[in-house]
């Protein structure tokens, strides 16, 4: 719990992750029971986590990284703002609004950092993984190879179909 503000603050994530124990956890739960703002935030975060877990895997569009890096730059600016907010947060007369801004900025900065890490991991994995070159089976050649490899049997019904012109084209 953030002692200065009197709200749960960053301890909320730790509580939801089960990382708070003992008196800290009890204090946080007691605060959530009496503070509407923190309770609402707790519900919102819980819902968001639930939605995220239920989302199907999505392949990002081709311009994902371009936009990501652009957002990253914005987040860097936000992080600077976050520093100001943190100062305001630490000040005894900090407002609730400034605290929310501070938390959002840090969350965004964290998300951006994680996305950057994931992107870097993806780049490394993508570069070192074996490359599947696009392959189009030469169907006509395969038919010829099959018909001529089949040695036993009736030659007419075996070979005749292989000379019929069939176009296997897209």
């Amino acid at each position, binding site marked *: 719990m953030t002692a200065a503000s009197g709200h749960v603050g960053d301890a909320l994530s730790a509580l939801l992750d089960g990382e708070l124990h003992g008196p800290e956890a009890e204090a946080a739960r007691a605060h959530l029971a009496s503070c509407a703002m923190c309770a609402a935030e707790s519900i919102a975060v819980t819902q968001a986590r639930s939605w995220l877990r239920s989302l199907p895997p999505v392949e990002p569009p081709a311009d994902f990284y371009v936009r990501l890096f652009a957002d990253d730059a914005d987040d860097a600016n936000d992080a600077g703002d976050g520093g100001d907010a943190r100062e305001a947060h630490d000040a005894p007369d900090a407002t609730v609004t400034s605290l929310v801004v501070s938390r959002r900025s840090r969350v965004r900065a964290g998300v951006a950092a994680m996305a950057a890490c994931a992107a870097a991991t993806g780049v490394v994995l993508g570069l070192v993984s074996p490359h599947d070159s696009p392959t189009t089976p030469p169907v006509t050649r*395969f038919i010829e190879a099959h018909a001529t490899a089949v040695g036993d049997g009736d030659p007419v019904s075996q070979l*005749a*179909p292989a*000379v019929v012109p*069939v176009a296997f084209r897209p």
Partner: protein
Amino acid sequence: MRASVAGCAFVLLVSVPAPALAVPAGPGAGPTGSAGPTGSATPGGTVGDAQNPFEASRQAADRLSFIGLVDVTWDDTTGSHSDRLTVQASGGSFQVQGGATLMAEPGGATMVRRPAGDWDLLWSGTADSASRPDLSAKYEVTPSQPSPTQVASRPTNVVEVRQSGALRERLFLDAENGLLLRREQLDQTGHVARVVAFSVIDLDPQIAAPVTPARLSDHSPQRLSSVAAPVVLPEGYRRVDAYREQGVVQVLYSDGLYDLSVFEQRGGLAGADLPAKGEKVGVGTGKGWVYAWPGGQVLVWHRGHTVYSLVSEAPVDQLVAVAKALPSTGGSSLVDRMRRVCRSLVEPIAA
């Protein structure tokens, strides 16, 4: 037969004498046409060899001299199709001429004439395939009633090939010499999906052997002494042999009646380049595409880092069963899928 041809010398074809045959109304006109002379049929041959009619026909084609017209009729998703071909055989050499020309030598060499006139050697005839499964292990071969029936004005004995009671093939064998004059293949619904039939045949000992080409480009596959492929597959298919040509591995299977070639290529399937008239089928958790060709089906699918193409005369249901059972040659683990996803993300940026 492939098994009997190793080490033989080959005579190569230079030109193809044009056959002088009366042409009936058209493909699919039925078993009509001019009755040819008896020719060089060997009395007392393997006529009516009900247990292995294909072997009987092969032996007849090896010893007879004949020239004829053969109609090939087949169905695909767009409807029914047919084409007429010229067939000539003498002295164990065999030639079939249509859009392309294929020629098989007594030694087993098989070659194709390309539209530009060049000849490619597709099979050298030097490999000796392992024995195939016994036809009777999976199929029942029984004479059909009523018989005989005329095909190309020649009396035939009709033989039916059944699998667990279901009719798979109907064979019309020349009553005098055992040559297969008409072959009907039925699909799993009992519909005749494919017919290869003589509309005209002229049996004559004076017919010359096809002339072999003077020059050949060798495109014959290299036989592999060992291959990482299942020995046994569903539907009674057993591995017969394996080859490699232009970096593509071909594993040949047989169930005694149908042969089945599995082609393996490293890479990912370029779906946009696949022919448009394929029929989508489920192959395990993935999907594949089936294409009909005049002799059977081709099933194409992708798994792991490998593109598979399965070519066979067998019905589609058997191909799908085999495809499902083929193990992946790698690349389907979670880490591997992650790598492929990452590569798909990185490639557009790298480009």
